[in-house]
């Protein structure tokens, strides 16, 4: 057994409950502690933590991040979670469970800045960092011992302390031999956790419900349950042929249930689509009412495209009606673009065709296919102004970066005064 103190980084070949060096109780103990090198890093209630960091008066209060009454909870702090609030819960339900919660509109720009800072810190540990979302990443620390003069576990504990000190949020870390187990480990000791899964993986997973596996949703779980499979142990014991009954991915699923996963950590994994969407406080039905949020989404999409170095080869409009039916419509762009005006011009006629008196609760826009930003917005014979629109958008973004979001914008993006 090896134990590591996560506060003073003291580690030794022993199993101790509190650190013999500093007395801290934050000790992690595992036989393979110093040998494992795949880590899953997940921020704890990221958006809420950032807001609490910036406003100390929120400490100890339940904080929810999310849109207006109709939106969903994008993040709930741990105080709110003790009252039963979860991410992705409709806001009105969250407020029923936790009426005294402080609801904060998400400030994505701020979270993105924070996330970039975190990303940079991870990339200082290893080049093999694969971001999974804004606040989650998987890292392969194999072969970094010489560089950091410490085994991966120690490097990670040091990283967690540095994040708390420099970024002001906490992370939970899962350390294991592969990505799947690392992810599961990261979820076992939240918040501010550090969990390790080694050779005991299969035994550990055996009694867990199948839903624990990423990729098994309610529908898949139901299908498995009909076949009498409710635990990962049952699923893992299926041989390849038997597993095929559950589809092409069956055998892979069975392997995962045994804790096997050979996906590499791939720092340049392809981004497949970039999108933005918003849920309205009250249903909207007219083109005029829908175009204002659509314009703001075009701006958001343009910004995300720029951040990731992509342009849109086409646009996808997504609408959700008041009775939750989804509609998606797509159009190819004549030349790739990452400028809101051009995206808006392409998506506006798609919206016009859907406006038929139906009330919509959500609108979204996506870029698909994604193409490299290089050569985008060059315009063509029928659109010689494209480069000027791109230059104008760049100028607007530069001004906004300097003076704030509100400094300059198109009239069509203004919110009506209530």
């Amino acid at each position, binding site marked *: 057994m090896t134990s590591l103190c996560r506060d003073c980084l003291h580690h030794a070949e022993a199993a101790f409950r509190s650190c013999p060096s500093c007395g801290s109780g934050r000790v992690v103990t595992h036989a393979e502690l110093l040998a494992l090198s795949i880590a899953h890093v997940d921020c704890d209630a990221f958006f809420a933590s950032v807001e609490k960091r910036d406003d100390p008066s929120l400490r100890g209060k339940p904080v929810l991040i999310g849109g207006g009454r109709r939106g969903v909870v994008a993040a709930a702090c741990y105080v709110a979670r003790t009252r039963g609030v979860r991410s992705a819960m409709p806001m009105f339900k969250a407020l029923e469970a936790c009426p005294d919660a402080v609801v904060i509109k998400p400030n994505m720009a701020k979270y993105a800045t924070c996330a970039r800072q975190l990303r940079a810190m991870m990339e200082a540990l290893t080049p093999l960092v694969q971001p999974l979302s804004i606040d989650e990443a998987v890292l392969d620390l194999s072969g970094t011992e010489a560089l950091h003069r410490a085994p991966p576990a120690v490097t990670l504990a040091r990283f967690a302390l540095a994040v708390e000190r420099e970024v002001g949020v906490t992370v939970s870390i899962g350390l294991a031999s592969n990505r799947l187990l690392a992810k599961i480990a990261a979820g076992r000791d939240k918040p501010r956790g550090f969990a390790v899964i080694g050779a005991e993986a299969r035994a550990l997973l055996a009694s867990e419900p199948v839903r624990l596996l990423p990729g098994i949703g309610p529908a898949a779980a139901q299908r498995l349950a009909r076949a009498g499979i409710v635990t990962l142990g049952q699923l893992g014991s299926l041989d390849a042929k038997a597993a095929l009954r559950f589809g092409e991915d069956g055998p892979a699923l069975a392997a995962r249930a045994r804790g096997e996963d050979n996906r590499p950590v791939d720092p340049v994994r392809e981004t497949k689509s970039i999108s933005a969407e918003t849920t309205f406080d009250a249903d909207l039905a007219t083109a005029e009412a829908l175009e204002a949020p659509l314009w703001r989404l075009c701006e958001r999409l343009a910004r995300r495209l720029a951040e990731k170095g992509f342009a849109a080869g086409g646009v996808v409009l997504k609408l959700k009606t008041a009775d939750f039916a989804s509609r998606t419509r797509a159009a190819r762009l004549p030349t790739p673009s990452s400028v809101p005006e051009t995206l808006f011009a*392409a998506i506006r006629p798609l919206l016009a065709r859907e406006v038929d008196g139906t009330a919509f609760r959500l609108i979204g826009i996506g870029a698909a296919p994604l193409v490299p930003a290089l050569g985008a917005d060059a315009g*063509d*014979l029928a659109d*010689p102004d494209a480069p000027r629109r791109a230059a104008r958008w760049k100028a607007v973004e530069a001004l906004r970066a300097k003076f704030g979001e509100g400094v300059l914008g198109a009239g069509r993006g203004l919110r009506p005064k209530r």
Partner: protein
Amino acid sequence: MKISVDRTVLLKALAHVQSVVEKRNTIPILANVMLEAKDGVLTLTATDMEIAVVERVAGVEVSRPGRTTAPASTLYEIVRKLADGAKVELDHKGGDAPLVLRAGRANANLNVLPVEDFPSMTEGKMPHHFALKAGTLRDLIDRTKFAISTEETRYYLNGIYLHAAESDGAKVLRAVATDGHRLARVEEPLPEGAAGMPGVIVPRKTVAEVRKLADETQDEVSIHLSDTKIRFDIGTVQLTSKLIDGTFPEYERVIPKGNDKILRVGKKAFADAVGRVASISTEKSRPVKLSVSRGNLMLTANSPELGQMQDELDEELVSYDAAPIEIGFQAKYLTDITDQISEQVEFHFADGAAPTIVKDAGRGDALYVLMPMRV
């Protein structure tokens, strides 16, 4: 309604009107042709709500005037398969009664739909009027229609932009089409009456129909138009079409001004060579590279899968006297343009990445702009 008409005459009229009828229709009556018989004239009307074609057939024996609507393509198919020289009788007792077609010993009962339901494309006032020779109209269409765009996003490019303009001090009628990659601009002396016309975008389907009809006449075609509609009177056919409601781009700005590297090359030899080297590139989006130097033109195409091919043009066919240049174009775009040119093709280059002007060296009334591809 009861009439008797020559099969050949009826077939020709049906052919004209049925081609605007959409093959798949959600509104049943749009699949029908309206037939009206009165005073020795049979009038046939078909529409897809964007275009309406009306044809008047004179010299018809009308024994009982009247009107009804019947399935256009079925009627056309039946009449087409009747013996040449047959006399066709169309008999409609009125109301819901079927339209009875008799020819020799063949007869058909066709279901009808009420005339009252047939949509009429109200013409409204068409204040502008001018006439073009059928040959001139064909010429304007042929030399521009290949550049019409099919993309949905920029619907205002889905037609030919027809407007009055001034070119080197002369008043002209201009037809312009572009899909963003190439642009065709063709002009004719401004016909009388066209001076005050608004710039209008004539939709692609209308262009195709008018072009077909213009083949059948040597007479003048009379054109009436307003801001929203255009009407062509071609022989016995009257075609009315809605116009595309949009703003055509300011195309003058994309026509390069200072392109001073001029290549003249024999059209046939050039088009043949483009066709030859392009056969190596299965993907139509791959470029043919033109390497031009003093008195020399080399064409190259390559495909990563298939290989590479080049061809060089005879020296006496090539005239070029400027700095060497390498530039790539889509093969199809080159031949679409050379198809409109008779003897000598004239290229005006700026550099390998800038829009290039292509002209017929023999005539100044047509100008094409081509965007190069990276090679």
